[in-house]
C-alpha cells in the first residue's frame, strides 16, 4: 500500500518515491536485519537484482543525507510486501535499524538492471556471501519459476551468520552451506566442490555476489565451462538513478575496452565477463 506519493505515477513512470508502511524490522542474526514493508504496484514490479534507494531517517542529530542502496531481497505481490536484508554498518543502516512497525520508509525504486536469465537455462549455480545472499535470493525464485534447477552455495565466516537457507529452499533451490570456521569456504575447496557438481550435472548459468574472491572463482569457472554468468556489483552511490556518475566501476565492455560504468544504471548486475571485481 502506498501511503503517500506526491509524484505523478502510472503513465510511464517506472520508478516511484514509495512511502511504505513498515511491517517488521527484526534482527535475523548478529549482523543482519530483515525489513518488511508494504509496497504499491510500482515497487512490486521489482525484479531480482534490482535495488531500492532508501531514505534513512535522521536519528539524534545524525542525518544520512544521501539515500542508501539496498537490493530487493523479497517481493511478495500477493501480500503486497517487499523485503530488504541488511547489515548495520554505518549511520544510514543504523538509522534503518531504528525503524519500527507502522513507521514509514521512503523507498525509491525499483532501480537498475536486474539479473536476466538466458531463456532455456536448465541448471543454475548461485554462489553468494554476506550481502550477496540478499541479492541472490529472488534470482532463485526467478530461476525455479522458469523451471531451472538451482544450486545455491552460501558462504559465511561462521555458521550462525549464514542466512537465506529457508528463503532459498522455499524457492526450490538446493542449498549448500560453507563456512570459514569449518574450513569449507576457501576458493580451492570450493572450486573442487563446484567442479564436482558441474561434473554430475553441468551448470548452464552462474551468478555470484558479495565477495571478490568468489567472483574471481566463478568468473574463471564460467570461462572454463564456457557458460554465461552474471554478478551484482556495489559502489558508493549518490542518486541511484543514473544522474550523478558517482557509482562508476571499471568494466570491460563487449569489445574488450575498459570503461567506467554506472552501477545504478548500467548495473548493478553485469555480465560476469564484463565485470572486473572490486
Amino acid at each position, binding site marked *: 500500500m502506498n501511503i503517500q506519493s*506526491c509524484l*505523478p505515477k502510472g503513465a510511464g513512470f517506472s520508478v516511484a*518515491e514509495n512511502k511504505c508502511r513498515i511491517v517488521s524490522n527484526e534482527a535475523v542474526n548478529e549482523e543482519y536485519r530483515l525489513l518488511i514493508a508494504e509496497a504499491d504496484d510500482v515497487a512490486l514490479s521489482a525484479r531480482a537484482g534490482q535495488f531500492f534507494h532508501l531514505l534513512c531517517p535522521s536519528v539524534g542529530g545524525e542525518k544520512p543525507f*544521501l539515500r542508501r542502496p539496498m537490493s530487493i531481497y523479497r517481493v511478495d505481490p500477493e501480500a503486497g510486501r517487499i523485503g530488504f536484508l541488511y547489515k548495520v554498518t554505518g549511520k544510514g543502516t543504523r538509522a534503518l535499524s531504528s525503524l519500527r512497525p507502522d513507521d514509514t520508509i521512503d523507498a525509491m525504486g525499483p532501480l537498475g538492471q536486474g539479473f536476466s536469465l538466458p531463456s532455456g537455462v536448465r541448471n543454475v549455480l548461485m554462489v553468494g556471501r554476506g550481502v550477496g545472499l540478499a541479492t541472490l535470493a529472488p534470482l532463485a525464485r526467478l530461476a525455479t519459476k522458469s523451471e531451472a534447477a538451482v544450486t545455491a552455495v552460501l558462504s559465511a565466516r561462521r555458521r550462525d551468520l549464514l542466512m537465506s537457507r529457508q528463503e532459498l529452499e522455499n524457492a526450490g533451490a538446493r542449498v549448500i552451506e560453507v563456512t570459514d570456521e569449518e574450513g569449507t569456504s576457501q576458493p580451492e575447496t570450493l572450486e573442487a566442490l563446484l567442479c564436482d557438481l558441474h561434473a554430475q550435472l553441468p551448470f548452464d548459468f552462474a551468478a555470484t555476489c558479495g565477495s571478490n574472491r568468489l567472483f574471481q572463482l566463478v568468473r574463471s569457472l564460467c570461462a572454463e565451462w564456457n557458460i554465461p554468468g552474471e554478478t551484482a556489483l556495489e559502489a*558508493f552511490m549518490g542518486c541511484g538513478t543514473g544522474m550523478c556518475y558517482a557509482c562508476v566501476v571499471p568494466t570491460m565492455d563487449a569489445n574488450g575496452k575498459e570503461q567506467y560504468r554506472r552501477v545504478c544504471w548500467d548495473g548493478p548486475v553485469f555480465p560476469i565477463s564484463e565485470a572486473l571485481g572490486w
Partner: protein
Amino acid sequence: MVDLSVSIGSLKLANPIMPGSGTMAEGLADIIDLDGLGAIVLKTITPDIRQGTLTPRVAEFNDATLFSIGIPSKGPDYFLNNTLPFYGRYKAPVVASVSADTVEDFGTLAAYISAPSIAAIEANISCPNLRAHGRAFGMDIEATAGVIAAMKRATDKPVWAKLTPNVGDIAAFAKAAEQAGADAIVTGNAILGMAVDAERMRPRLGNVIGGLTGSAVKPILLRMVHQCAQAVDIPIIGCGGITNGEDAVEYMLAGATAVQMGTVNFVHPGAMPEAVGWIEGYCRRHGVERVRDLTGAMSDTHAGQPKLKVTQ
C-alpha cells in the same frame, strides 16, 4: 491565478525552476514529468570523450555532499544523436552546457551543438575538477570574458555564464561576463572542498578535492547572487543548496530571476515539481500576481519594507 513565467532575456520559461547541470539525466524522466520544469539543463559536455575522475567520487556530510565527478563526456556527436533526441519529446526548453580546454574550443563546441532544439547554452567555466587543484577558467576574469565572447561569436543561441563561487569578488566576474555579451549569469557552481578520513589518514575522494553542494552552501551562494544582482542588468539564475520552494523564493527576493536545483534531485527526485507548487502557493498567500515581481523584492535592511507592490 499566479503567473509563474519568467524571462531569461529572449527566452521565456513557464516557471523559474530548472535543474543544475549534471544533476539530472534521462533517469529522472522515469520518476517525474519533465514538462513541469521551467527548463531542462543538461550535463556539461566537452569536445572530447572523457571518463571523469577516480573513485570514490562522493563523500557525505550532514547537510551537504562533496562530489568529484569530473566531466564524463561522450562527446558532441553522442550528444546530438542520442541525448538531444531523448529530450525532444518534452516541451520544456532544453539548455546545453559546454566546457573545454581552451577559449577557442568553447566557441567551436558551442557552434557545433547549436541545434534548433537547443534554447540556450550554458558555459561551464567553473568546473572545479578538470585542472590540478581546481583552478578553472572562471577563477580568471579575462578567461571568463574570453569564453563568453568566443561563444557569442560562434552561436546565435543565448549564452549563460555559470560562474564559479571560488573567487573573491563574484560581482566583478558577473560584470565581465555581462560585458562580454552573456545573456544571463548563473551563480553558481560548486564550492571547492575536501574531506579527510582521519582514521585512515587519507582523502575521502579519489580526486582529493571536490565540489561542495547541498543545503549547507546556500547562505554563501545566496550572498553571491545578491552581490551579482546589484552589479549587472542581465538576469541572474541562482543556484546552490536550493532544496524547496522557500529556498527558491529566498534567491528570487535576493535578486535571482530563476533558480537551478542540484543535489536535492539525487535525494528527492520530486523536489523540483514540488517547489513549483510551493512557489505558487507562496505568491497566492502574499498577493503576488507575477512570480517575476519577487526578483529583488527583498527590503534592503532588516527593519525596512519589501520593495514589492502586492494586491491584497
